[in-house]
């Protein structure tokens, strides 16, 4: 109300026009509306639908959504899709699980002891420099072309980003928190539980999101190279027989899987890190 008394006589202060005091410049994007992220993909599907209905592209190159939907129903009816999907999910989940645990445990060990750091960190940094997919030939020689090889390729791809980000977070723990731990005489176990792990979780989740993406990428590669089941196998079979709609279906499934797993990680992250106030409120 001080605003009123400061305004020149005869002039209405701004605050009486709007809903109170004038708001300052908005520096952050507006808060997101629910489902906002779906909007873009929906637009693309719409465009796709129009393009194929109008015959802008040849159906052999790009079948319409309807054709893909038919293919979807058929593969469901024959049980082919369920089987392939299950195989893919299983590989991804196993690889992800192993990679996440390995990356996290190694990061904590390396982050907490000088010995661990000297043994682990250098090796992971070297591993990081070798593209994961370049290791496939070696893995095939060692492990054959079976499931173990596929899962290990995925796991290694996941491990690296988990390790790097968790380790970085651990290494940058605020010294002040360590001092606090000393002044309240935390035991080492409690120190790890109450300070080290919570402080490293933001980094861990950054790594997890990269790791999940990495898991799908690795999955596509191992399934396309050498597989007798899985979505990647379905796609390469379809390509051989010129079934473009099946290729598209496989790609869409990959997309949906990637998108929803990322969304799931975001939800978990927001829950676990609810103490943080960030842009994504």
């Amino acid at each position, binding site marked *: 109300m001080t605003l009123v008394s400061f305004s020149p006589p005869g002039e209405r202060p701004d605050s009486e026009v709007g809903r109170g005091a004038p708001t300052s410049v908005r520096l952050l994007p507006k808060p997101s509306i629910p489902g906002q992220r779906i909007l873009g993909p929906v637009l693309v599907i719409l465009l796709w639908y129009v393009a194929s209905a109008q015959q802008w592209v040849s159906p052999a190159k790009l079948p319409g959504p309807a054709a893909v939907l038919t293919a979807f129903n058929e593969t469901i009816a024959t049980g082919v899709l369920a089987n392939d999907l299950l195989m893919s999910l299983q590989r991804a989940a196993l690889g992800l699980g192993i990679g996440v645990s390995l990356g996290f445990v190694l990061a904590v060990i390396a982050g907490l002891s000088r010995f661990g750091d000297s043994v682990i960190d250098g090796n992971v940094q070297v591993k990081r420099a070798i593209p994961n997919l370049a290791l496939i030939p070696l893995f095939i020689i060692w492990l054959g072309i079976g499931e173990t090889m596929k899962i290990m390729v995925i796991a290694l791809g996941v491990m690296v980003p988990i390790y790097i980000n968790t380790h970085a977070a651990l290494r940058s723990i605020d010294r*002040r*928190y360590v*001092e*606090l*731990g*000393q*002044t*309240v*005489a*935390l*035991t080492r176990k*409690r120190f790890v539980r*109450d*300070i080290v792990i*919570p*402080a490293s*979780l933001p980094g861990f989740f950054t790594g997890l999101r990269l790791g999940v993406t990495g898991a799908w990428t690795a999955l596509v590669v191992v399934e396309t190279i050498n597989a007798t089941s899985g979505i990647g196998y379905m796609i390469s079979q379809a390509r051989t027989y010129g079934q473009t709609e099946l290729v598209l279906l496989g790609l869409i499934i990959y997309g949906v899987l990637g998108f929803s797993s990322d969304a799931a990680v975001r939800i978990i992250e927001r829950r676990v*890190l*609810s*103490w*943080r*106030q960030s842009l994504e409120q």
Partner: protein
Amino acid sequence: MASVARAVVKGLTRREVAVRARGLVRRFHGNTVLHGVNLEIHKGEFVALLGKSGSGKSTILRALAGLDEGVDGTGTIAVPSRRSVLFQDSRLLPWKKVIDNVTLGLDDPDARAGALRALEEVELQHRTDAWPKTLSGGEQQRVALARSLVRRPELILADEPFSALDALTRIRMQRLLLDLCSRHQPAVLFVTHDVEESLRLADRVLIITDGIVSYDEKTEDVRASPTRFEAYRTEILEHLGVPQRQH
């Protein structure tokens, strides 16, 4: 000078000693910051530590808190094992609710009950389950105070705990601290830049200059009369190298 003042204040000399530091020397990269600090604090005594910026106040405090591992130096230190530190920042763990910050590191089954009582003492019982980041600066510092109290410390080491607070919150916190100290009777070493704060809170004021304790006065009587307060204020400021105008 110090010994004369001590003899005057009856009874206190006979009180048990809570903190004793002898010949404290501390160096950073060959630069000697403490040149042999001697320091004694009695049980229940509230001592303010003043000194210019960079004079080594935090260095003394960190030595007493056992937070200067690896720092080059000599001397002997005897402090109670039940001690707690109040930092300039509240140093709450952002990922722990207020109550869990207060009980941090405590094992005993009634730690929670004690924490609730401590939060009540700092008038924050309604924010027990809040995240620290949602509290104001003053509220955060009160949680830090509760975290100290719940440990029933025999020694509180405070390094400018209120200097980041606004004037009003600061006065409230000072009252609260005095009140809590009179009830729990810990020995307190309180580092501050603020001469008036030191006079308002402490029984005794120390000044550190050139790495030694250069001033040590009982100032308990200041609260009785404004003229005493003013006299001490002038004396201390002059000792700190801030010349006072003659009236």
